[in-house]
């Protein structure tokens, strides 16, 4: 999958990933959403989604094919 303009979170564990997403979402206008977030293939997406709460709707979690 070709991913452009994604926020790269590769290599980050859960807490810094969440911080990065929250930082990216600050000040972003609605039509730039959903934001693509590039995460490690082994990232626990369910946990991340739960942590994001309502902000989860504003992002799409994707990972690079291995």
């Amino acid at each position, binding site marked *: 999958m070709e991913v452009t303009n994604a926020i790269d979170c590769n290599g980050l564990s859960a807490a810094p990933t969440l911080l990065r997403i929250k*930082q990216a979402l600050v000040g972003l206008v609605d039509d730039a959403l959903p934001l693509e977030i590039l995460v490690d293939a082994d990232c626990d997406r369910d946990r991340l989604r739960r942590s994001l709460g309502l902000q989860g709707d504003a992002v799409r979690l994707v990972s690079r094919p291995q």
Partner: protein
Amino acid sequence: MPDLNVDEMPSGTSVPVPAKGVSPEVPDFAFDPTDPWTETFQKGLERAGLSGKRIYEVGIGTGTNVAFLLRMCGAAHVSGSDLDPRLVVLAERNVRSLAPEKANLFHPVRGAVSLIDTEEARARIAETDVIIACLPQVGDPGDRRLTAFRKAQAVELPEGAGEKADDHIAHYYPWAAFDEYPFNSVGLGLNEALLHRIRDHAPTAQVIMNFGCRIGTDIIFELFEANGFRPEKLHSQIVRQDAGTDISFFVMLEKALRGTGLEKDLVCAFFADEGALRPLSASEAQDLLDRDPDTPLYHEVCVIRAVPVAA
């Protein structure tokens, strides 16, 4: 600040012996080399076995580490540069006075050099065995995007924290400019940018970097692992938090995690005592400072050596 007479430094001593004689020139725009961060760094460098190595220092400051590497660690030669072009000129003068007989082994890369972003710096790095650096790990309090994030967490910038000290760039980096690097989210974007460049231009070189461990040592180790390096701690010391440096950066990271279920995954590591027996989160540390700005706070500074996994 104490005078240093390098001729009277017993070999194997990392902290220069204060004595009458030569002392480095330290104008206000330079990071004070008597700071415990530099002392910690030099103890780590001493343990790294650098005899005969070709070394490059990114962010050379006053040149105190260059003189130390040449005089005390037996480096084959040392190159170095800094973002502030005045510093490399200062470093040349200081190396000439602190290590006169070895000053010809110092190869300065002049001008304003961010990381290793000039042809000359990259050419030097390509013939280097070890790259050393102690770079800012806190986003500039005046950064526009960081300010927006701070406001979203309802964290106030303490009075005076946004003011620019003469050595501002020794403490803070332009946060948004390094946002392509994932570890920027915890203040390690500038350091990660350097690791990327080293991987590209000196793929077999080791790195030795000095870190404040306020963000937690685990995350710093993850930074190296994620970038293809195997880290190891060479030395660490508990130092007093610099009274002039803003810690609200760390407070807003903790606050942003509140209520997410991940708050225990990132708790900043401050201490109320020099013995590091009473840990404090950044929020607890900031509360103490709000009550009394002179409250002494401490944190670990550690020197990490990292070798490229692929080499």
